């Protein structure tokens, strides 16, 4: 049977509503991290730490011409929301904003944005790290690599290391 159980640690789930605003967008076009920062912080004086992670399309030392990202509409938003909500129940966050792009992306282009706001930096750093770890393993996106010669187009394999990265959240607080 080639079907696998989802080997990732089960996401900690809470029935409580998220204690802070969560903004999630799945878009084809680019985003502007500075504009997102301004929007998240607008009118706020309680935020003491804002962590912004931006994932970029890298060229793999010239071996990659483009990435094509396929996603499962509806489920992508829902899964990222579950991950974000889990983070808000684990750390005292004041805001979460996540953007994930799909479609064809060239090296140097932005792929994903995760922003976490909190009173203090430790919580914001940890929450952003947690969100990226779970997002990579649970959000239904698939990358296909386009090679510079235009011929080979291969689906990227999921990395073992990403699944192992989740296990550290079982113990960590």
């Amino acid at each position, binding site marked *: *049977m*080639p*079907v*696998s*159980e*989802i080997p990732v640690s089960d996401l900690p789930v809470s029935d409580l509503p998220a204690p802070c605003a969560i903004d999630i967008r799945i878009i084809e076009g680019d985003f502007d991290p500075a504009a997102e920062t301004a929007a998240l912080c607008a009118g706020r004086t309680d935020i003491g730490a804002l962590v912004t992670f931006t*994932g970029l399309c890298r060229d793999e030392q010239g071996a990659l011409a483009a990435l094509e*990202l*396929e*996603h*499962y509409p*509806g*489920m*992508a938003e*829902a*899964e990222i929301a579950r991950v974000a909500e889990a983070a808000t129940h684990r750390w005292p966050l004041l805001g979460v904003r996540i953007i*994930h792009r799909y479609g064809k992306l060239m090296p140097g282009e932005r*792929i*994903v944005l995760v922003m976490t706001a909190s009173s203090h930096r430790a919580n914001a750093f940890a929450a952003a790290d947690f969100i*990226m770890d779970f*997002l*990579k*393993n*649970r*959000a*239904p*996106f*698939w*990358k*296909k690599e386009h090679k510079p010669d235009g011929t080979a187009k291969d*689906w*990227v*394999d*999921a990395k073992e290391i990403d699944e192992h990265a989740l296990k550290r959240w079982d113990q960590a607080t």
Partner: protein
Amino acid sequence: MKLVYFAWVRERIGLAEEERELPPELATIADVITWLRQQGEPYEHAFGGAGTIRAALDKTHAKPNAAIAGVREIAFFPPMTGG
């Protein structure tokens, strides 16, 4: 039942989605896969070939032994590679 496929599962089958009458005796995701493998070479290639497949029921991750009763949409796809 609406079946949807992504990434190389979609490419091997040659369809992004399809509507299928599933035999009533199919109870779990694993049962559906066993049945799909008998639906022609592309399905055998997708579900019996190399690579790990995961599934979702109504857009929620599900394990192979999950019951499909009452479900409207089953998705099959490789392990995710987003982020």
